[in-house]
Each structure stands twice: as structure tokens, then as C-alpha cells.
């Protein structure tokens, strides 16, 4: 097991080294050929080349079979749509609105999930009263509330934020509860042997122990918050990428629909990496493979 991991990390190390320009030590020509073949074997380069290949095949097959662009546009058409939408500012403006909705929803969900999760894990009375509701609500498909929220909060920002926050809330909540309860019994005994207060136990042991779980929850919540914003925009909105996507769809401008999807993908990926960055700084002491995702 251990050996296997070592070998794997060793392998990763060498591939990284090999993607660097090789040191000039041997003969120049064989050196360059070796460097090229090593460059080809690097993981990132392989993925990049593979993607280029797929796009080329897509473009070629699409043109050869004359697939109508309202069914499946060519990659080049999608690229043009993306470019023109970005240049005239429409995509940027819409993406900004959706991102703002999602991030606001996410932050509300994160705070509410951490606060309520802590209360549930700390106070038996809160757990007894609130937990049945949470279990009930969790099995409900949250997107189903979107029409109701539009009725209550209107077509503007607030309804998007509410749907986004509601959907993103549950993964945070569940992970906070599980994380706080995962604290090591011996570490808690150590705290108890020093007559530590509830707050000291929470601050020094339970909360740090929960952090890997909380970040796993936040990771899911970030994706869910974008999902919530888009769904709410679908149901009723005046702006945002979801709104734009529906308009393009009804005009059968499928190239622009794809361009919107690409932007949404970028949005989700950026949020994911932002959270991973934060996690690596805050949970530096834990190994990633020790955390179960819930």
C-alpha cells in the first residue's frame, strides 16, 4: 500500500520533471528528440492533444454530414458565438449577474450551514427539534421550490439568491454536523481532563477536526449555488446566463447556447478551485484522501 503510493508519487514527480526543458548535457539532436518525446508523454500535454483531436473530429464529421447548426453546431461556430458574445459585453454582464447571485447564495448557505450545524451538534435540544425537519427537507428535490420562491420574492436578484442558498445549504449543514461529531474521543478526553468549557472544546478540537468535512461540503455547495441560480433564472428572470440561455434556445441559436454552457462550466470550475485553494491553506495538516465526501 505504502510502496504503491510512493511509486505513484515518484511517477508523478518524474513526469513533472520531464515536462521541463531538459538540461543540455548530451548530444544536441538526440537531446532534442528525447525532450520532444518526453514532452508528448506528459499528462497535461496528452489531455490537451486529446481535446484538440476530439474538436477536430467533431468539426470534420459535422461538416461532412452537414449536421444543421440548430441541432449541433461546429466547434468553430461555438467559438465565434462565444467570441462575439464576450466582445459585445452581453456574456460578461450576464455571467457577472449569475455569478453574483450564486456567490451571495453560497455565502449565505455557508454561514447558515455552519451556524445551524454547530447548534445541532452542540445542543441536544436543537438536534431533537430541528433534525426531523432537516431529514424531511433533504429528501425533497430543492429545485421544486423555485416557482414558489419566484412568487414570493419576484423576478429580481433576491429570488435567485434564495433558491441558490437553499440548495447549497444542505451539503454544508450535513458536513458540519458529521465533521463536528467526528472529533477524536481521546482529544475530547484531553479537553475534559482540563475542565475545558464547551466553547474551548469547540474552538480547539471539534471545529478544526470538522474543517476537512466542511470544505468537502463547501465544494459541493459551490456547484449547487450556481445550479440554484440558473434554475431560478429559468423559472423567472430578467437577466443572467440562465435567462440568456433560454432566449438563445427559443431562437434556436444553439451555438450561443453552447457558449453559455462553456461559461457556466468555467464558473463552476473557478469556484471549485477557489475553495480548494482555501482548503489547502486552512487544512494543511490533513491529507486529502482521509476525507470522505458526503
Amino acid at each position, binding site marked *: 500500500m505504502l510502496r504503491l503510493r510512493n511509486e505513484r508519487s515518484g511517477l508523478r514527480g518524474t513526469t513533472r520533471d520531464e515536462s521541463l526543458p531538459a538540461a543540455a548535457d548530451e548530444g544536441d539532436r538526440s537531446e532534442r528528440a528525447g525532450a520532444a518525446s518526453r514532452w508528448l508523454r506528459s499528462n497535461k500535454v496528452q489531455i490537451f492533444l486529446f481535446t484538440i483531436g476530439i474538436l477536430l473530429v467533431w468539426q470534420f464529421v459535422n461538416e461532412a454530414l452537414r449536421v444543421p447548426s440548430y441541432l449541433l453546431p461546429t466547434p468553430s461556430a461555438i467559438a465565434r458565438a462565444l467570441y462575439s458574445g464576450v466582445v459585445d459585453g452581453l456574456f460578461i454582464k450576464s455571467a457577472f449577474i449569475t455569478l453574483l447571485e450564486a456567490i451571495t447564495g453560497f455565502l449565505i448557505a455557508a454561514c447558515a450551514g455552519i451556524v445551524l450545524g454547530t447548534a445541532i451538534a452542540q445542543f441536544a435540544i436543537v438536534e431533537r427539534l430541528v433534525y426531523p425537519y432537516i431529514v424531511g427537507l433533504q429528501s425533497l428535490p430543492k429545485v421544486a421550490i423555485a416557482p414558489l420562491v419566484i412568487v414570493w420574492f419576484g423576478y429580481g436578484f433576491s429570488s435567485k439568491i434564495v433558491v441558490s442558498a437553499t440548495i447549497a445549504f444542505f451539503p454544508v449543514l450535513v458536513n458540519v454536523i458529521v465533521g463536528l461529531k467526528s472529533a*477524536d474521543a*481521546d*482529544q475530547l*478526553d*484531553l*479537553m*475534559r*481532563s*482540563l*475542565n*475545558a468549557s464547551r466553547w*474551548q472544546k469547540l474552538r*480547539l*478540537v471539534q471545529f*478544526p477536526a470538522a*474543517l476537512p468535512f466542511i470544505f468537502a461540503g463547501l465544494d459541493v455547495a459551490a456547484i449547487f449555488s450556481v445550479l440554484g441560480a440558473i434554475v431560478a433564472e429559468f423559472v423567472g428572470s430578467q437577466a443572467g446566463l440562465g435567462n440568456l440561455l433560454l432566449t438563445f434556445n427559443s431562437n434556436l441559436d444553439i451555438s450561443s447556447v453552447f457558449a453559455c454552457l462553456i461559461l457556466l462550466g468555467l464558473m463552476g470550475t473557478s469556484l471549485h478551485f477557489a475553495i480548494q485553494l482555501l482548503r489547502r491553506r486552512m487544512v494543511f*495538516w*490533513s491529507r486529502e484522501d482521509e476525507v470522505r465526501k458526503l
Partner: protein
Amino acid sequence: MSTVLKADRSVAESPAEIRITDLSMRYRTVSGDSVFALDRVSLAIQPREFVCVVGTSGCGKTTLLRIIAGLVRHTAGRVHLRDREISGPSADVGIVFQGPVLLPWKTVLENVMIPVVVLGLDRDAHRRRAMELLDLVGLSGFEDKYPKELSGGMQQRASIARALVHQPSLLLMDEPFGALDAMTRETMNLELQRIVKDAAITVLFITHSIQEAVFLGDRIVVMTPRPGRIAESMTIDLPRPRELDAMSAPEFGSYVRAVRRLLNARGMTH
């Protein structure tokens, strides 16, 4: 260094550090019936005495330690820490658990400072003491490392420093070196003997190893299982400081044999 560690309490004519009278402990199990973990155990430990508890697995050693630590409540009998009957954990006790139990998100120094932080003691004054203790356990230079950067033996030594930082008068140790290899264990035994001498502290030390108990203890308490009872209390009259060579001395061997005979005699009946 030792001036800081030396506790300023008088050793003479003070009451017993621990006095346990007819202590019984019954655990309630999930299935509803109860486990008789300790049966009318009586034991007195004098200040600055080093008492080792040996006994087969499940004879109630950890239970005894947790009761003295105030972590679990006994069902009958009385336990006095000096002149006060225990009613919960006390700041006057330091505990070394079977594992190091360090917080992985804190540096070694921060871990050693945990009792100071939790008990609300003066941090600046105790930071110096923590550094001296780290030096004493051979970890100077490692104070800013994280636990995962230390070997198992080093982590356990950090946990000994932590148990001593708030100047407890009683040190409770539950098989602290059980997870270490034989070589490291012997080194740790030597170091513990030195640390305890400097700290002028009472120690209750639980172990599975008869050699370790004879090497460290002023006295050995032999426990027998089901229900947990004290079979015998044996004074170890070997000169201090004890060197590793002492383990090959004939007196050492005869103590080891005596303890083993006690353990075997009682163990066979069950």
C-alpha cells in the same frame, strides 16, 4: 532548568497524594447488564512516589486511571486527591494517554501550551516553561514543527511535556510507551526517570511490561481481572538513578520473576 520544574510544596508530613478506599466500578453495557470493572480497590500513594500498575488486559487499569483523572464517575467507594475528594477533573493532574493525542493542526509548542490555554494561566510565563520542558524531553528545535513531522516517540515525548506544563502534582500515565519499539521504549524509560526526578512529581504509571514496571517503579501494584482487584503491592528496592545495565542485575531479575509469578497465579484461576 530544574529550578523551574521543582514544585514548591513541602514533601514532609503531607497527606497521601492519592487515597483510594473501597473503590468499585460497574459499567452499564448497551445490552443492559453490567460489567464489574473494579471491586473494592484500596490504594494509597505517597507524594513523589512512582507507582506502576501491572495486570492482564481488561483488569480495570484504565478504568482506575480514568476515575482518578475525574473522567468517569465511580459507583462506590471514595477517592481523595490529597485532602479533597474528587468530583471531576482537576488542574492538579497531568495525563499521558496511550497515544500522544496531539492536535494535528497545532505546532508542537502550541500543543504543549494547550493546558495553559484551557486553564487560563499566564501564557508568557508558561511559554518559557514549555520551551524548557521541550528541551528536557529532547525536542528543542522542534517547537514549530507539526505533529506529523515527528516520529511516534517524539510525539509521545511532546505529550509528556504537555502533561507537565501546568505544574501538576500528579502525573497519570496509561501505557504511554506501549506503541513504541523496544529500543525507543528503553530510552524513554531512562528519560522519564530523569524528568520525574527533576519535576518532583507523583506518578501512577500503567504498563503491560513487567521489566518496565520494575525499572521505573518505587512500588508495583499487581491487579487481577474479573472483577478488577489489587492482588499485591510490592516495593522495588533498587538504587536510583537506575541505568539500563541494572536490568541484568540478579535483584532485577528476581523482582521480575516475583511479579510474573503473581500475574500467572491469579491469571490461571480464570
